């Protein structure tokens, strides 16, 4: 168990410790469990890492629903590998958060009771197979932009988890892109299906990067302490610059009448993002919020007998070993 140290501004040596801590970050060093850190650094990391872990676990649901309905055995195998990856990502991340002194049980309880947040994007339904492709290409594409930034994070265990996760997300991104491009040059019905999926996922995907920098209260501190290395708007801009030309090349049109290329800056500029919807979904009013949490609670409840059986088995093995 990690020995928790104090790190509050009212501690007598806080100023001196904070200066040493910030000097380490300025030198590009990684913090490790057990190192002194401000209590606020620890709190922000626990908040971000556990939210991220929950997102991986809830994120298995919209895609998992398509495993039995995948259009070919090849696609089914790909999707199985991908959903299994998301479970693994949740595990790496819960581990990283645990090194900060929070327990797995506390985090799972926060998720199942509805207190903890997870990425808003998973509160939307997957209506057709094209949605699975769009999630792989765009949703995972945005996730990678965010995660490659977090792989530079100043906290060692989070940074290491992110490096591993990015390597696997790149496979998710490529398979999604392949699936979408295939439909984009397919039959009329396939093209309509994939354009419809793009229309529905476009704005939620742009919202994934988080509120605009001017509305993001945590960002300045997170940047100062090297938890984040880019702002929400920077991440969103990188995503647009990479994906818009590729979508247009494929004959797909993002549902934004104001979307334009700015010659001067070389950036793709988007129109107003429907933030009202974002806040509504965050507050639990999205189309799938209730359903997602119920599915997780049900899985937890229905898995109880497995946990109990494994525990009984473990106790017996340990008793036998002790004899």
């Amino acid at each position, binding site marked *: 168990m990690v020995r928790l140290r104090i790190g509050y501004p009212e501690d007598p040596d806080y100023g001196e410790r904070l200066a040493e801590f910030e000097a380490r970050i300025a030198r590009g060093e990684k913090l490790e469990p057990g190192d002194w850190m401000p209590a606020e650094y620890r709190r922000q990391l626990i908040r971000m890492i556990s939210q991220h872990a929950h997102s991986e676990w809830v994120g298995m649901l919209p895609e998992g629903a398509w495993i039995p309905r995948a259009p070919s055995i090849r696609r089914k195998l790909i999707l199985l590998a991908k959903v299994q990856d998301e479970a693994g990502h949740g595990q790496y991340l819960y581990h990283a958060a645990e090194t900060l002194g929070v327990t797995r*049980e506390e985090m799972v309880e926060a998720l199942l009771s509805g207190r903890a947040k997870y990425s808003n994007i998973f509160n939307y339904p997957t209506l057709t197979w094209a949605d699975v492709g769009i999630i792989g290409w765009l949703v995972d594409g945005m996730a990678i932009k965010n995660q490659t930034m977090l*792989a530079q994070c100043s906290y060692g265990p989070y940074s290491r988890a992110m490096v591993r996760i990015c390597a696997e997300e790149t496979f998710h991104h490529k398979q999604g892109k392949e699936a979408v491009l295939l439909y984009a040059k397919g039959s009329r019905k396939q093209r309509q299906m994939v354009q419809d999926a793009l229309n529905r996922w476009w704005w939620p995907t742009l919202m994934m990067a988080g509120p605009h920098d001017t509305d993001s209260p945590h960002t300045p501190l997170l940047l100062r302490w090297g938890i984040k290395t880019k702002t929400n708007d920077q991440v969103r801009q990188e995503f647009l610059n990479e994906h818009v030309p590729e979508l247009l090349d494929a004959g797909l049109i993002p549902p934004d009448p104001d979307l334009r290329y700015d010659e001067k800056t070389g950036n793709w500029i988007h129109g107003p993002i429907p933030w009202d919807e974002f806040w509504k979904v965050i507050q639990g009013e999205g189309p799938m919020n209730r359903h997602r949490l119920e599915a997780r609670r049900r899985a937890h409840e229905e898995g109880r007998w497995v946990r109990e059986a494994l525990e009984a088995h473990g106790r017996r093995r340990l008793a036998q070993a002790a004899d």
Partner: protein
Amino acid sequence: MWGTEWPRYEVMKQDTPRSPVQMVGSVHAADPEHALLVARHVFVRRPAAYALFVAPAEAFFHITQEALKDPGGLSPEEGPEEAYWVFAKRSHRRSMVYGDLLGRFLAKGPADAIAQALLQGQGVAFWAVPERLVVGTESTEEVVESWFAPAKEKTYRLQSYYGLITAKGVEDA
């Protein structure tokens, strides 16, 4: 119903017979055998692996760079002599630096084991765990094959499978 969390096990992975044993993360499990199985699912979904080891997380004695500066940090212990595995993290600079196994040391306690290891190698953080609590996969060909070959054969394991994808060049799938 809470208060039922399984114990946490640290997971150590060796990629090839010649690579170092590294601390890669932790899993929750009911017993060490279960911990090894969960560790395989979490840390060996893709190649490569030659061996996996687990030990209860609370059995690890951990010391940071900062604590090493404190002269009392590694005070000598007076327990029965036994073997410890000592791990060191070599640098704080790069992302993918794990705790690497420095070796096996006979000592009267974990701090003593780390003090001995310090004579052999530098590090910015150290861990020591009694060898008797470490459970691992055997390094026989049959065991290595049955534990780790399936991940190597797994379809769609790497992004390079897809090569370069463009709107003009997508192949039929």
